[in-house]
């Protein structure tokens, strides 16, 4: 038994030593995700990101006024093709936005009609204060909803007695970003996406290296030692998982120290999601090594598959910008859960419970991939 443990350790240490040995490759493997994430984060964190065609925005509405005008505006918003409205209490609206279920929520205050009509006649009088709760992860949602709201209010209010055209809106908008995190950081999402992409690339490399090992006779040599398949393949999974966690750690350290990303949610939850994703990357590599034939073909197909996975997982363009059907379809993509899980624990600031589902899904996919690898692995030749 202790022999097996020593052999297992030797195998894991060997893989890690090889990874750490190649300084240039090591630096590239952590620097690339940081640079690319910084670029994406800069793009998406900036102000000018409107103009995308997006699916119907789920928006909550709270009507505390219950006046003819507020009802008319609510009705009008309901029929807006770009919104999917839902009447909720103010408290519930807050919760739903925070959980990412609603993109925004509009709260009409009591006295909205009275103050708004007053403001129309006398611009100097008190304006009603409409609250706009929004999800700060999506910089374009807030102006879109604000614009639509103004448009609908103006339409309704002008019907009975409005005369002019170019009047200012008869209310003020109190824009409230709702996230438990201390503040939104545009880099948080891009770091989640890019670390996932590049850690998966590393997983592929590990798989391809195993394929190479088999071609070059090293695998034969390893199998000469009295070691079980479980030790040979298991050690490979463990070493790749450790390397993946190392990359994630370094990349997120840079994200936190340089780009101000915060783990605003649960730190244990973040670690859970990160570890289970690291395991997923390792088992993905193993699966590749077991189904692959030639190195060149395997690498090509695997890179294509990873790019597809990370694209559909919302690593490049956030999944909430996908059309609705695609958002549902991509729930079957493991990377989607990884991105969402890391997002939840960072800028979304969600509690530990929100990490459970992504962790479970990632572990489930890892188990599936490992089973496929064991099933397909060719022990005889090489």
């Amino acid at each position, binding site marked *: 038994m*202790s*022999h*097996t443990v*020593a*052999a297992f*350790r*030797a*195998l894991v*240490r*060997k893989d890690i*030593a*090889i990874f750490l*040995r*190649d300084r240039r490759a090591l630096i590239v493997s952590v620097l690339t995700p940081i640079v690319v994430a910084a670029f994406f984060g800069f793009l998406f964190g900036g102000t000018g990101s409107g103009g995308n065609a997006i699916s119907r925005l789920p928006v909550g509405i709270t009507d505390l006024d219950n006046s003819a005008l507020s009802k008319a505006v609510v009705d009008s918003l309901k029929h807006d093709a770009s919104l999917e409205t839902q009447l909720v209490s103010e408290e519930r609206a807050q919760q739903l936005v925070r959980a990412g279920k609603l993109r925004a929520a509009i709260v009409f205050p009591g006295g909205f009609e009275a103050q708004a009509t007053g403001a129309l006649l006398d611009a100097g009088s008190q304006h009603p204060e409409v609250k706009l709760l929004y999800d700060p992860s999506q910089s374009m949602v807030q102006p879109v909803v604000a614009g639509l709201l103004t448009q609908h209010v103006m339409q309704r209010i002008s019907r009975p007695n409005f005369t002019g055209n170019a009047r200012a809106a008869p209310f003020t908008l109190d824009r409230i970003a709702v996230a438990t995190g201390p503040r939104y950081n545009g880099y948080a999402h891009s770091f989640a996406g890019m670390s996932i992409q590049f850690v998966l690339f590393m997983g592929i490399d590990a798989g391809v290296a195993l394929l190479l090992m088999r071609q*070059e*006779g*090293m695998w*034969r*040599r*390893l*199998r*000469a*030692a*009295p*070691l*079980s*398949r479980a*030790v040979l393949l298991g050690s490979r999974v463990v070493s790749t998982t450790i390397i993946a966690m190392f990359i994630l750690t370094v990349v997120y350290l840079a994200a936190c120290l340089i780009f101000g990303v915060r783990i605003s949610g649960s730190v244990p939850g973040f670690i859970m999601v990160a570890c289970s994703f690291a395991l997923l990357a390792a088992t993905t590599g193993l699966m590749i090594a077991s189904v692959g034939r030639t190195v060149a073909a395997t690498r090509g197909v695997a890179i294509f598959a990873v790019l597809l996975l990370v694209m559909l997982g919302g690593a490049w363009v956030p999944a909430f910008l996908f059309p609705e059907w695609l958002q549902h379809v991509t729930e079957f993509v493991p990377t989607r859960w990884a991105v969402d899980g890391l997002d939840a624990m960072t800028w979304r600031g969600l509690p530990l419970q929100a990490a459970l589902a992504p962790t479970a899904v990632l572990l489930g996919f890892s188990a599936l991939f490992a089973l496929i690898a064991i099933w397909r692995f060719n022990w*005889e*030749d090489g």
Partner: protein
Amino acid sequence: MHLVADRLEKKFGAITAVADVSFTAVPGQVLGLLGPNGAGKSTTISMLAGLTKPDSGCVTIDGVTLGTGADPTKRHLGLVTQEIALLEELPARMNLEFFGGLYGLRGRPLASRIASVLELTSLADRAGDPPSQFSGGMRRRLNIACALLHEPQILLLDEPTVGVDPQSRNAIFDTIEVLAGEGRALVYTTHYMEEVERLCDRIVIIDHGKVLADDSLAGLLASTAVSNKLTLKYDLPPDGVALTEIAQLAGVTQIDLAGTELSVSAADLGTAAPRVLERLAARGFSCQELTSRRANLEDVFLSLTGRTLRDT
């Protein structure tokens, strides 16, 4: 420890790599597995090392049947693969630590084993360098060293001198002789007959996956219809009459005339050679150049297969 290969057979799809191979390797001896490319040497070694399960037949070590995977019997075996299997970018010492670790060695015992195999393979002064900076011969030596850490009683060496300069080759031979001298059983595959002649106590000739002969060098030379050869060069080649006379001389088994070169095979050159020369001189043919060659493994292989080792 005794290693017995008992009627081993292995097919890969339609190809029969090993058809029927049996032999016994005994302690203190080097058994040479000699055969041309594709003869089934490496496949045999795979079965001996517990990498591949034979389709039929079995391998036993001191009577215990060898399995694959985690079978602890494999601890008695050391394998030197035909393809060099090293961690190219890690220092030689780390390679040795790794391969020792695979067999559960660690700490002080591992360190002392590393020191002794480095000394045995004369690599101690290069232990800190990675094999990627080694010469071909040094890489081969390290490849051997990695198989010795767990002190296997049986060592399987699959063409361990391929791509090696003469100096390193001699160093490897010395190492092998030391290991045999320590009472280990060695199986050495090669397609170089000189290596087998120099090293091996017992020679197993295999071709197309079958054992054609299994004996000592002397035994092989005695048992096969091979003989020593006398080659004579003439300005004017001997005529038919002279050739007939020579062919009928006692002890001469075969004659061949190629251009001006006459070769005469005989079991005992000492007695046959003077008679041949005498008879030719009497016929007026004077010899310009004369060479003699003892029969060797090449001749044995030729007589067994009708081919030479080289042109297969």
